[in-house]
C-alpha cells in the first residue's frame, strides 16, 4: 500500500516499486556504457604514468614515440593550457604532471595510436629522466617539522598559524564552543583513544573512460562515464581553454561512481589528442590505473576524548582529525569535522581538523566523504563510554541524541530529524531483541555492535523538460546522470502529479546540449533536487492541460477540474469528460505541442541519520571476523521507490563491511602501490556477507514536496564502527585501526 505524505494524502505511485525503465537494456547487455562507444577511425589513447612516488621531472623526450608509425598524437603537461610552467591549479597538474610527480601512477604523458596495443608499446618509447625524492606516505610523518615537502609553495592556512614556512599541512581549522575544562571536570568518566584508518577506494566495477571528438571547426563532443556531465564540460573548457558552449558532454550509462567519478581524469587528455590528430580518441583505464591514479578516500589519524557523567549524559568532547589529502590539498576533513559529533547534544566541544598532503593519489569523494573514518573514532568511544556507564548502546545514544531545535556540534540548528526514530527502531528490531546464539566452536566468540552516523545530504541545481506525446504519454529529459535507478523515480513523480502510471513516462538523461544545467549526481541530492524539478514541470503540464481542456470543452479554465485518474471535467458540463490522452491527441490543434521545462536551485536538504546493528563471530585463533547478521536502519525521509532505497542502504553497508575488514591501499617502502588489482585490493564478495536487512524509517523532510532527505551516503558511515564495537563485544578487545583484518585482530587479541 502506498504511504501517506505529511498532509495525510495517499500517494498513488510514490512508494510503489515499478520496474525501472532502463532495466531491460541492463539485463540484456544493450545498455551503452562509455567503454562501448565506437566511432569510425577512432584512435586509442594510453597514459604514461610515474613509476615513482615522488620525483622531479628533469626531462621528457617524446620524439621516439612520435616517430612510431601507429602513433598520431603525443602530449605532455606542456600541451595543457594550464599545464607545465603555467599558472594553474592542482586539478590540472593531477591529470598531467607539472615539474614533479607526486604519486605512483601520476600521469606524465599520453599517446594516441591506431590501436590499443601500439599505444601501449609507444609509451615505452618515451624517455623521462627523474630526480627521485623521498616519499611521504603517512599523515603523521607528513606533519612533522622536518618532513620532506611535496610542494615548495604550500603554506598552512587556517587558525593562528599563518606562516611563510612551507608545510605539508595545507589547512588547520577548529570548531569550538563551551569550555572543555568545565565539561571534562563535570564528567565521571573520561576516555581518550587514537584511531588510524587506511586509504580505501570506491571500487566501482566500471573503470573510467572517455572518448572525444574535436571537429576542424573546434566543436567538441565527449562521451564518458561521469557523475557530473556539466562538471566535465566546465573542466574540459577550463583545462583545454575551449569555449564552454563549444563542448557537448554525453554522459553514457555509468558503472558505479560513489563519488569517484565527480572529476575528470581522462577527458581533457582525449580532447587534446583528438584536436592534435584530427581523429576521435578513446581512452579507458585498466583496473591498476583506477587504483593507482583516480580519487580514493583519505587514510586518517583520529584522536577522540569524551567525558560522561555516571548517568550516561555526555559532558564534553575533543576531537582531532588529520586526513591525508593525497598529492594535492583537499581531503574531506572539513566534512568529517562537521559530522563527527553531529548525532549528539554537547555543550563543550572542540574539533580540530588538519588537511595534509602525502605522496598518494589526490583524494576524491567517496560516499559520505570523511564521515566513516570520523565515526569509527567517535562511535567506538561512545560505545566504550556506554559500557562504563552500565548502559547499552541504544539507551546511551537515546539519552544524548540530537532532536529538532538542537544545535549541531559545529553550529547549525537542526530542523525536524529522525535520529531518535532510528534508535527506537533498532531497539524494537527483532535483531536487537534476539540473543546472539552460541559460537560455532571452541575457538570462536560472538559479539554484537551498534553504531550511528550523520550525513548532511545536499540539494542544488537541476533542470528537466517534459514533452506530451500524441498518445497521451510523456517523454522526460532530465539532467541528472542516473547512477542507480533515479530515472524511474523521476517518472514516478511525473506520474503521481498527472494521475498516470510510471510506465506512461519515458525518462532519459540528456546530454549537456539537450537539457539545462544540472549539478552532479552525488551528495545524495538527485531524488531531492531532480525530483523537485520534475514535480514542478509536471505541475506546469497539468496547468496547460487544464487550459487546453477548457478550450476543447468551450468553458472557462476555472471551471475545469483535473481528477486524480487523469480525467478532466467542467462544472457546467458534467457529462463531457475528457482524458489526459484526449487533450494530448488534440494538442497541435488547441494551441500547439504541450511541453514544460523547469529549472531550480533547491535548498532545504534534509539531514540523514542511520543506526546499524551487526553480529560477528571472531575466530580467536586466526583473527578472522565473519558477519553473521546485519540490520541497517535509516531515516530516509520518504522512500520514493523502496526497492532502490533498500538497495542503496544494503550496498552502502557492504562497502562499509569491506572498509572495516579487508580494504586498504598497500604501499611498499618506496611508496609504490603493490595491491593494484581486485585480487589484492579485495572488495566483499557474495560469500563475505549475509543478507542485509534494511529498515526504512520515514520522517519526512519538511523542506521538500515529497519529504525526500537523500539516502545514498549515510549507510556507509556506521558499519566500520559497528563492526569494531561488535568485535570488542566478542573479544573484550577494542579496535583502533582499519582494516580489522585477521592480522590486526589477532595482534590485538594477543596484545
Amino acid at each position, binding site marked *: 500500500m502506498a504511504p501517506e505524505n505529511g498532509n495525510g494524502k495517499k500517494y498513488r505511485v510514490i512508494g510503489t516499486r515499478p520496474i525501472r525503465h532502463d532495466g531491460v537494456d541492463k539485463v540484456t547487455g544493450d545498455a551503452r556504457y562509455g567503454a562501448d562507444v565506437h566511432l569510425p577511425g577512432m584512435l586509442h589513447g594510453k597514459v604514461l604514468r610515474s613509476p615513482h612516488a615522488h620525483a622531479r621531472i628533469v626531462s621528457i623526450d617524446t620524439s621516439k614515440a612520435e616517430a612510431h608509425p601507429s602513433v598520431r598524437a603525443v602530449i605532455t603537461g606542456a600541451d595543457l593550457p594550464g599545464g607545465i610552467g603555467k599558472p594553474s591549479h592542482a586539478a590540472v597538474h593531477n591529470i598531467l604532471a607539472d615539474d614533479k610527480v607526486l604519486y605512483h601512477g601520476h600521469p606524465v604523458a599520453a599517446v594516441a595510436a591506431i590501436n590499443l596495443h601500439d599505444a601501449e608499446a609507444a609509451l615505452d618509447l618515451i624517455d623521462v629522466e627523474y630526480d627521485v625524492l623521498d616519499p611521504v606516505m603517512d599523515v603523521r610523518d607528513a606533519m612533522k617539522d622536518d618532513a620532506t615537502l611535496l610542494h615548495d609553495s604550500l603554506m598552512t592556512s587556517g587558525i593562528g598559524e599563518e606562516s611563510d614556512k612551507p608545510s605539508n599541512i595545507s589547512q588547520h581549522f577548529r570548531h569550538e564552543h563551551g569550555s572543555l575544562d568545565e565539561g571534562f571536570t563535570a564528567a565521571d568518566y573520561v576516555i581518550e583513544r587514537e584511531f588510524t584508518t587506511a586509504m580505501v577506494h570506491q571500487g566501482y566495477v566500471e573503470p573510467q573512460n572517455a572518448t572525444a571528438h574535436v571537429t576542424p571547426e573546434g566543436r567538441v563532443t565527449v562521451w564518458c562515464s561521469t557523475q557530473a556531465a556539466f562538471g566535465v564540460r566546465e573542466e574540459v573548457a577550463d583545462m583545454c581553454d575551449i569555449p564552454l558552449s563549444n563542448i557537448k558532454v554525453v554522459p553514457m550509462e555509468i558503472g558505479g561512481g560513489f563519488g569517484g567519478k565527480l572529476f575528470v581524469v581522462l577527458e581533457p587528455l582525449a580532447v587534446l589528442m583528438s584536436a592534435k590528430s584530427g581523429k576521435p580518441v578513446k581512452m579507458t583505464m585498466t583496473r591498476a590505473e583506477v587504483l593507482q591514479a583516480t580519487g580514493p578516500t583519505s587514510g586518517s589519524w583520529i584522536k577522540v576524548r569524551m567525558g560522561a557523567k555516571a548517568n550516561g549524559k555526555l559532558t564534553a568532547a575533543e576531537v582531532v582529525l588529520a586526513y591525508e589529502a593525497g598529492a594535492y590539498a583537499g581531503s574531506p576533513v572539513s566534512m568529517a569535522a562537521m559530522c563527527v559529533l553531529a548525532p549528539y547534544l554537547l555543550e563543550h566541544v572542540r574539533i580540530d581538523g588538519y588537511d595534509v598532503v602525502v605522496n598518494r593519489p589526490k583524494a576524491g569523494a567517496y560516499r559520505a566523504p570523511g564521515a566513516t573514518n570520523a565515526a569509527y573514532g567517535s562511535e567506538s568511544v561512545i560505545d566504550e563510554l556506554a559500557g562504563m556507564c552500565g548502559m547499552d548502546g541504544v539507551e546511551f545514544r537515546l539519552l544524548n541524541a540530537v532532536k529538532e531545535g538542537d544545535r549541531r556540534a559545529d553550529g547549525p540548528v537542526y530542523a525536524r530529524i529522525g535520529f531518535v526514530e532510528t534508535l527506537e527502531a533498532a531497539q524494537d528490531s527483532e535483531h536487537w531483541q534476539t540473543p546472539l546464539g552460541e559460537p560455532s566452536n571452541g575457538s570462536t566468540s560472538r559479539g554484537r555492535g551498534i553504531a550511528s552516523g550523520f550525513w548532511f545530504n545536499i540539494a542544488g541545481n537541476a533542470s528537466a523538460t517534459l514533452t506530451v506525446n500524441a498518445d497521451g504519454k510523456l517523454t522526460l529529459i532530465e539532467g541528472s546522470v542516473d547512477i542507480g535507478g533515479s530515472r524511474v523515480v523521476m517518472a514516478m513523480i511525473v506520474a503521481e502529479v498527472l494521475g498516470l502510471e510510471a510506465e506512461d513516462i519515458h525518462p532519459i538523461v540528456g546530454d549537456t546540449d539537450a537539457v539545462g544545467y544540472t549539478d552532479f549526481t552525488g551528495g545524495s541530492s538527485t531524488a531531492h533536487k531532480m525530483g523537485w524539478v520534475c514535480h514542478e514541470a509536471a505541475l506546469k503540464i497539468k496547468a496547460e492541460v487544464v487550459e487546453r481542456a477548457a478550450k476543447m470543452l468551450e468553458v472557462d479554465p476555472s471551471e475545469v477540474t483535473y481528477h486524480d485518474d487523469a480525467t478532466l471535467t467542467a462544472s457546467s458540463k458534467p457529462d463531457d469528460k475528457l482524458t489526459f490522452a484526449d487533450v494530448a491527441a488534440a494538442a497541435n490543434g488547441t494551441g500547439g505541442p504541450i511541453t514544460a521545462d523547469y529549472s531550480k536551485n533547491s535548498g532545504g536538504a534534509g539531514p540523514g541519520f542511520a543506526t546499524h546493528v551487526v553480529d560477528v563471530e571472531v575466530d580467536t585463533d586466526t583473527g578472522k571476523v565473519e558477519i553473521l547478521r546485519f540490520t541497517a536502519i535509516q531515516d530516509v525521509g520518504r522512500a520514493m521507490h523502496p*526497492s532502490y532505497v533498500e538497495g542503496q542502504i544494503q550496498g552502502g553497508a557492504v562497502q562499509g563491511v569491506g572498509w572495516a575488514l579487508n580494504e586498504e591501499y598497500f604501499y611498499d617502502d618506496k611508496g609504490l602501490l603493490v595491491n593494484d588489482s581486485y585480487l589484492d585490493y579485495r572488495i566483499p564478495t557474495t560469500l563475505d556477507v549475509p543478507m542485509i536487512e534494511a529498515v526504512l524509517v520515514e520522517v519526512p523532510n519538511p523542506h521538500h514536496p515529497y519529504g525526500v532527505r537523500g539516502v545514498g551516503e549515510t549507510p556507509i558511515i556506521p558499519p566500520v564502527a559497528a563492526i569494531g564495537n561488535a568485535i570488542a563485544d566478542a573479544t573484550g578487545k577494542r579496535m583502533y585501526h582499519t582494516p580489522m583484518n585477521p592480522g590486526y585482530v589477532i595482534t590485538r587479541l594477543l596484545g
Partner: protein
Amino acid sequence: MAKKRIVSFNVNGEAVEVLAEPRESLLEILRDHLRMTGSKEGCNNGNCGACTVILDGRVVNACIVLGVECEGGEVTTIEGIASADGLHEIQRKYLEHAALQCGVCTPGFIVATKALLDANPDPTEHEVRERLAGNLCRCTGYDKIVRAVLDAAETMRGEAG
C-alpha cells in the same frame, strides 16, 4: 608479432569467423571484433566476472580466455540469454527484485546465474553465494541479487514441473 589467424566458433548459436591476433582475448573478440559489448571489462584479469560467458558449458571470464582457444567452441553471452519471445525468467527476476543499480556487473551475473541454475535448479542460499562469488558487485551488497536468483530458481522449477 605473430600472424593473425582465422577463428571460427559459435556465439549464441550463430557461426562467426574472425581474423584475430593470437594475443587477443575472447573479450576483445566479442567486444571489438563482433561489437557485442554486453560483456563488460571491469578488471581484465579474471577477478571481477563482468565479462562472464559460458564456453562449451563452462563458466569462464572472457578476459582471460584467448580468442584462438575458442576455435570450434560454443559461446553463450548475455546477448544470447533473452529470446524473441522475451526476457529469460532470470532477467525478469533481476528486474522485479531491483537486483541491479549501475548495471555494469549485471550481464556477468545473469550469465553466471544461468550456468548455476542449469547445473543446479534448486540451490540453497549458500550455494548461490558460492557459485556467484566470482562476480563482483559494488552497488547492491548482493542481497537483492541472491533473492532474485532464488526466486528465479523457484519459478523455473515450477515451469519445468
